[in-house]
Every structure is written in structure tokens, then in C-alpha cells.
């Protein structure tokens, strides 16, 4: 079998497993647990995407909720606009829904990525901490804009034209299929030549530039890509909630994302996955303690920075830890 065929086969197998698992979970679990599972998947997308810019490239975005909002509103709006035409063209309802949903998600991601591009150009020419301030400001402005945008429902939020809200396309299959795709994309990017350049930028930007790495261009590309993944997560979130409200994307949401990647380990993809799941679960466990949640997160951030700044895994991946270390005797024996 050629490598391409092998890869296609593996991808199909993964999708089939996700599909079957989804069927089983939807049959066997309560709505409440299913919701947590969906949120965990969306968090994984957010965390893996944010980790690319904050962890791998060493730039710091603290306004990713803004890109998520752009993706959510974009996907919701585009979905509502194209659904009638697609349903008229394709008579199989399930197929038309799937197509509408994915086109809408991609449209939201492109919009979010474009915003990332616009925000990234001025701020990424300079040192990383400017990005923190600009993204913080962007997150606030975008929320104020959605709060005042009449055609998107202003402060009450956008629910499409149907009184029952947006169609809830988001299912276990779509969330985890997108999560798997984004994890693979980010993994391949990180372990490619471009990824090595991104790590070089994180480790020493001046040295990287001296080695003829186009730092600004790479930073902007990584940032726009990261924003686009947040857009996908936003679209999935919108079609899970049956609507988008400006207050879903407050500064707290950006902090949630930062906690995800810091707990798991800045720069580690498997760490980001663990962190995403961790935040989804703790958010549910602490639902009654809402007002203490951010205090706890704040303490967690500071304590991790003081005690173990690299996070749980550091920049290592989980499978590096699970792989057995070669015994020292073997090496000498071979020699």
C-alpha cells in the first residue's frame, strides 16, 4: 500500500471510530454528560489552536475569545443564509445539513483567521507582549461591536430567523472529527520545518532572525491559523447552544483558554488536549461556585508560574513519556 492510501485508510478508520463512539455515547449518556463531552471537544480545539501561538511560537494572545466570537457569529450568520439554497438543491436533509454546517464553520474560520491576520500585522512586528495588549483590546472591541450590531441581534444575541434558534447541528461526531483534524494539522505543522522555525522564534527571536527565519511572516501566519481554529470552535459552540450571545465571549473565556494550555504545558499538543478536558470538567464541577472560579484560576496561574512554569508536561508530548527509555546496557552491547 502506498503511504497516501495508508493515511486515507487510517483517517477513515478514525472517523468511523468517532462516529461509532458518538452513536454509543448519544444512546448511553445523559444530556448533561453529553454536553460536557461536547464542550471538552470544543475546548480541545481551542487549546490546541491557542497553544500553537502561545506555546510553540512564544507570542501571547489573551483575547482569543474575540476570534471565537467572530467564528461563532460568522458561522451562525452564514449557515442561516445558505441553508435554504442548499436544502433546495439537495433533497437529502441530512446531507444538506452536513454541508451547510461545514461550509458555515469554514466561513467562520476564514473570517476569524482574517481578523487574526489584521490584528497580527501591526502587533507581531514587535515584541510578543504587545500582542497581549492588542488582543486584549481586540477581544473587548469585538464584543462591544457585536453588542451593538442590530442585524446580529445586538445584546440579546443572534438566533437566526427561526424562533426556536439556530439549528443544533453540533454533534459528537462533528466536534471530534474537527478536533482530530485540527490536532493532526497542528501536529504536522509543529513537527515540520516551519514548526521548527516557530520554536526557534520562541527560543530566541534575534537568533532566529539571524538564521534568516522570516520571523514576522511566520508569526502572522501562525497567529492567523490559531485564530481560525478558534473560529471553528466558535462555530461548533454556536450550533451547540442554538444561538450566540455577546456575553459568551467575555474576557473570562480567554482566561479559560489560557488556563487550558498552561495547566497542560505550554508548547505541548497532548498537554493542550488534557488541559482542554480539565477545564471542561472543572467548569462543570464548579458551576455552583461561579464567583470563586476565577479566583481559583488566578491562583492556579500564579502558582503554576512560580512552581512549575512549564506546566504539567512542559513541551514534551504524552507519547514521549509513555515510550520506554532504551536501556543503557543495550547501547554499549551493540557497540
Amino acid at each position: 500500500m502506498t503511504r497516501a492510501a495508508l493515511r486515507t485508510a487510517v483517517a477513515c478508520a478514525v472517523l468511523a471510530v468517532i462516529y461509532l463512539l458518538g452513536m454509543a455515547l448519544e444512546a448511553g449518556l445523559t444530556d448533561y454528560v453529553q454536553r460536557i463531552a461536547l464542550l471538552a471537544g470544543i475546548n480541545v480545539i481551542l487549546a490546541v489552536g491557542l497553544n500553537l501561538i502561545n506555546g510553540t511560537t512564544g507570542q501571547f494572545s489573551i483575547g482569543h475569545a474575540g476570534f471565537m466570537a467572530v467564528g461563532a457569529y460568522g458561522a451562525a450568520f452564514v449557515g442561516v443564509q445558505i441553508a435554504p439554497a442548499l436544502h433546495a438543491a439537495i433533497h437529502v436533509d441530512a446531507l444538506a445539513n452536513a454541508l451547510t454546517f461545514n461550509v458555515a464553520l469554514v466561513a467562520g474560520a476564514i473570517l476569524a483567521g482574517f481578523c487574526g491576520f489584521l490584528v497580527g500585522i501591526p502587533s507581531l512586528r514587535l515584541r510578543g507582549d504587545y500582542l497581549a495588549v492588542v488582543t486584549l483590546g481586540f477581544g473587548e472591541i469585538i464584543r462591544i461591536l457585536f453588542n451593538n450590531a442590530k442585524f446580529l441581534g445586538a445584546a440579546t444575541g443572534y438566533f437566526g430567523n427561526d424562533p426556536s434558534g439556530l439549528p443544533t447541528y453540533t454533534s459528537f461526531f462533528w466536534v471530534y472529527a474537527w478536533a482530530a483534524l485540527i490536532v493532526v494539522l497542528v501536529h504536522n505543522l509543529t513537527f515540520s520545518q516551519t514548526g521548527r522555525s516557530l520554536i526557534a522564534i520562541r527560543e530566541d527571536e534575534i537568533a532566529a532572525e539571524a538564521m534568516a527565519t522570516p520571523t514576522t511572516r511566520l508569526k502572522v501566519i501562525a497567529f492567523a491559523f490559531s485564530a481560525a481554529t478558534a473560529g471553528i470552535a466558535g462555530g461548533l459552540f454556536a450550533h451547540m447552544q442554538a444561538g450566540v450571545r455577546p456575553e459568551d465571549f467575555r474576557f473570562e473565556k480567554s482566561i479559560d483558554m489560557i488556563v487550558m494550555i498552561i495547566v497542560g504545558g505550554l508548547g505541548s499538543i497532548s498537554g493542550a488536549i488534557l488541559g482542554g478536558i480539565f477545564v471542561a470538567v472543572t467548569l462543570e464541577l464548579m458551576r455552583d461556585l461561579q464567583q470563586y472560579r476565577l479566583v481559583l484560576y488566578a491562583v492556579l496561574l500564579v502558582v503554576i508560574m512560580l512552581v512549575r512554569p512549564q506546566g504539567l508536561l512542559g513541551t514534551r508530548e504524552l507519547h514521549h513519556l509513555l515510550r520506554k527509555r532504551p536501556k543503557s546496557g543495550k547501547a554499549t552491547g551493540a557497540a
Partner: protein
Amino acid sequence: MSQLLQQIINGLSLGSIYALIALGYTMVYGILKLINFAHGEVFMVGAYTGYYAAGVLGIDAIERQGHSFPLYLALIVLLAAMAVAALLGVAIEFFAYRPVRSAPRLTPLITAIGVSLFLQNAGMLLFSPNPQRYPAILKEVRFEFFGVIVTNVKLTIFGVALALMLGLHLLVQKTWTGRAMRALSFNIDAAKLMGIDTNRVIRSTFAIGSALAAAGGILFGLDQITINPLMGVLTGLKAFVAAVLGGIGSIPGAVVGGLLIGLAEQLTAGYLSPEYRDAITFVILILILVLKPEGLLGVVRVEKV
């Protein structure tokens, strides 16, 4: 014409508050190359300290009798807030920033975000998330010149801010500590080799910056009538933009930047729409980052390996 003058007066008084806060950002950034995200929260704590100090000094009873709050008590309120904020600033530096001072740059930045978040939410738990009406430490008196309304509150804000900034200027230029601060911001390692106790100087920097922010907090309360635990987020951000606009690390730059941001905000609110008053700051930030990243009065520094 009189409307323009009115907006300029309001803008200058708001801008002088931003300038006071921006000084703290610029001093800390100048020395540690750290955006002290918690600075906005120190400003908030300063405002609340003033609120409670005025309560302890019996402002309610004085207001009920229709008297105005005596000036010496107002001064005590101001000094108390500045002292508490200075202690808080020093504590934040000691417990959160000092242990990570030599770590990679991202670590202190995340720590700063964590401290800021902690203070915001601790504030919500301690002071209640609802906005509080700020006590009238200064009874408002209105003057009118050619259709332009000037209140004694606005004049006091401008005057107090100016006096504090002048004090800071003298401190930085004329005292030993000020000279040490300038040495640290020039080259911290060389300063250490010259026998300067860098920890002590950094501590003083945080104390002074925080005290100025607290004064800004009280003036902000007087100006805006209400305060809330999240007031430091947006105001702190605007003050930071002011510092970047003027040239981060430059003390006169922070003052110029603060006044310009205040003016821009008032003029936007007056002539465009009040909804955009918060957005204009970020437009300015983006423009300055694209056109002149070193700021209006900043110096270009070559980064070396």
C-alpha cells in the same frame, strides 16, 4: 467653539488621570521590561481604599449635615489610599514578580495576568460586584466662563495630577533613588555591578508607581461618581496605551500620552458617538504600533543578543 473648549477641559482632566496611571506602567516597563497587568487593579484598590477611608472619617454624617468634607480630611484620604496601594504594589512585586524575574519573558507576563485576575475577583468578593457611589470628598462648585462650565473638581484633578507628576520628576531627576532608577532602566546588570541594591530600587519603583495609581483612583472616583471592582481593566488598558503612545519607558512620554488619550476619548465621545469612546484608544494603539512603535518621545533601542 464653547463646546470644543468644554471637551478639551474634560479631556485634559480625564487625561491627567490616565497619565498618573501610565507613569506606573512606564516606570516598571522601563526597568523590568514587564507589562504590569496588575497595575490597573492597584488603581482600583486605591479608589476603594479612598472610599472606605472617607467612610471611616465620617463623610456620611458630614454630608447629611450639609457641610462639605474638610480639606485636611480629604488629604488624609488621599494619603491613606496612596500608602495602601504602595504596600500592595510592593507585596505584588515581592510575592509574584521577584521569584520569576529571571525566568523567560512569558512567565512574568502570565504571572502578571494571574495577579490582575486574582485582584479583580477578590475585589468582587470583598467589595461586592455592584458599582458604589463615590463619596463627595470635594463638594462640586461650578464656574462658567463664556458658556464653558469648569468645576472645582476638574480643576483639582488637573492640579493634583500636575503636582504629583512634578514631584515624580524631581524625585527621578534629583534624588539618589531616582538616579538609581534611571541607571536600572539603562542597564540593570551594570547597575548591580556598580553596587546598586537593585531589589531596593525595584521595590521603590513599584511603591511610587502604585501610589500614583491610587491617587489616580481617587481622582477617577471624584470624576466619574461611581467605582466598581472591574474599573481597573479598561482604565488600566487605556493608561497602558497612553504609555505606549508616549514611548514606553519615558516618563514625560507617559504624561503626554495620557493627556492625548484623554483628549481623544472626550473628542470622540463629543463629536462621533459615545459608543466609540473606548474603541478610539485601541485604534490609536494600532496606529502607533504600525507607524512609530517607539512612541512619540521614546528612543529607538537596538535589541542585542
